[in-house]
């Protein structure tokens, strides 16, 4: 029985389409839940400047306000541990997702980012048996997600010796930044780039940069953003362009919400839950493009039943 329980979302960043979709999903799922009296409140909070310290203060304030659970997309996996520990000590349930925290008292809904990076290379290996030169676009330096995905990619390349990463730039998960970085490094790279491995939110920018340099467009892995998918569809229709797209679904925030609700309800929930990433392939591109809001991100939202299934699967 959680009708009198209050849940807060602590979010560190709202400045990209993925995060906006994440917040929209939260609203879409939690509002009806509050109306239905499943929980008393489900308020979202976002910090202004994507800073660990700011989020730590936010968590402390949420504790002060007497929330029973905090659903957390963290700015740092370790640096919030102090604040998270204090929350736990005060009897608050903390469930982290996407940007997870390592503090043992918190729950984690993790995506295997490393596997995601590896899958990109595996896909390319299947598609391009000859191998060849790859360009890697990374995210924001010093952030855990960036490091994990990149590790996965490099592991994948190590297992597929015919691939070679000839250039690596940071695009900060931003189309414009990725475009500038790729445009800068392209002239110095060999002409035969066969693939671009990415982290999401940077595929379209990479495509633009290749076009501007007058180069043949290689296989660019996409990151589920609608503009990336739309570009892919355009190319597919025009010349049969093939690639794949993969990212974490922003709707994972709603899974975290249900998990928190279940914990508050007294359910036994393992500390570590894993959700699959959302992958789009050549054959289901159209279907996904249709359901993705113009300018948004391909998404899945979770229901209470979905959440219970995930919990059961992990408990086994």
């Amino acid at each position, binding site marked *: 029985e959680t009708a009198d329980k209050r849940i807060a979302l602590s979010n560190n960043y709202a400045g990209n389409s993925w995060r906006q979709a994440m917040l929209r999903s939260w609203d879409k799922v939690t509002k009806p839940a509050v109306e239905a009296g499943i929980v008393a409140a489900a308020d979202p909070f976002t910090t202004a400047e994507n800073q660990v310290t700011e989020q730590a203060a936010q968590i402390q304030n949420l504790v002060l306000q007497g929330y029973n659970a905090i659903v957390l997309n963290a700015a740092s996996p370790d640096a919030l541990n102090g604040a998270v520990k204090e929350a736990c000590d005060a009897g608050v349930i903390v469930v982290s997702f996407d940007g997870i925290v390592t503090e043992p008292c918190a729950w984690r809904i993790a995506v295997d980012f490393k596997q995601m990076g590896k899958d990109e290379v595996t896909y390319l290996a299947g598609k391009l048996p000859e191998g060849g030169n790859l360009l890697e676009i990374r995210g924001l330096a010093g952030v855990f997600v960036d490091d994990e995905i990149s590790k996965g990619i490099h592991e994948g390349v190590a297992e597929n010796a015919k691939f070679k990463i000839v250039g690596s730039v940071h695009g900060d998960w931003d189309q414009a930044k990725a475009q*500038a970085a790729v445009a800068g490094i392209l002239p110095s790279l060999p002409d035969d780039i066969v693939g671009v491995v990415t982290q999401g939110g940077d595929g379209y920018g990479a495509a633009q940069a290749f076009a501007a340099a007058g180069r043949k467009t290689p296989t660019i892995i996409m990151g589920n953003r609608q503009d990336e998918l739309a570009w892919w569809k355009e190319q597919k229709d025009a010349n049969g362009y093939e690639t794949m797209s993969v990212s974490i679904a922003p709707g994972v925030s709603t899974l975290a919400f249900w998990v928190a609700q279940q914990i508050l309800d007294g359910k036994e929930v393992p500390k570590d839950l894993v959700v699959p990433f959302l992958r789009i392939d050549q054959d289901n591109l159209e279907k996904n493009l249709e359901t993705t809001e113009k300018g948004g991100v391909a998404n899945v939202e979770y229901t209470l039943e979905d959440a219970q299934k995930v919990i059961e699967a992990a408990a086994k």
Partner: protein
Amino acid sequence: MRWLLSRPWLWAYVAAIAVWGATLAFTGGRGGAEVMTAAFTFATFYVIVGLGQMFVVTLGPGNVDLSIPATITLAGAIATKVMDTQNSMILAGLLVAIACGVAVGCFNYALIILLRIPPIIATLSSSFLVQSTAIAYGRGIRIKPPSLLADFTTAQIHGVPVLAVSIIVLSALMAVVLNRTVYGRFVTAIGQNLRAARLAGVPVGGIRFATYVMCAAFAGLCGYLLSGFSGGASLSMGEEYLLTSIALVVIGGSSVAGGFSNVPGLWGAALFLFLVVTMLNTYGAGAGLRYMATGLIIIAVIVAASGKRAVR
């Protein structure tokens, strides 16, 4: 030669060429022209905001506009939404973007003059409000720019970006404004001595107002062109222009203490900043080394430039 050596912008160009040379040394000379094309393409956007920031910084110590990134974002979001991919709306989009900049500029100056808030803090605070407006308005949704705008912003003739040429013309115009018009002289006067300027008959309030508005309008223009160039507006599109716009002005040889500035240096500095990242990417430096090298190179340039200035 003497004339050249006494130019404050010289060092920005020397540095840009050196970094470009270092890049080519690595690739064995391959891709030199293409790197330059890319550099001009992206330097263009730096320069647009740099122009506005330069005039603001010239107004004297403490004058700086930190709301540029948020303004870029808001103008980009509103413009793409207004244009809604239709070519017929291109002009309307431009006007809306600039109007959006003008509105932010007016708000900034109102904080500075009515509430007497120091410009750094005033523009920082207003940037939060503007960013919020952009979020509430656009919700991070990316709308494609009209195709004609996208074509114009990415067009090249024989490897020369058309947009860069347009902005070079604009820069030349702003250089004339700075050096040869009453407005430009007045800005420089205020930057050297505000009290003296007021007593010498300079309409201090009006000039400062015009300058903050102009700076924000340039940021609006940048947001408009940038969203055309990179396939739509995003909430983070302005982020990198915060520190870059200040770095440009100073590396370009203008004085942070105000009262002394020049336009050509902006281009040198913009090319330099882009080429540094390119060089380090080409060398395959990891993020840590890349950050460090960027910082050290910036310091080296400013040290080299200052040595010359002392001689003058």
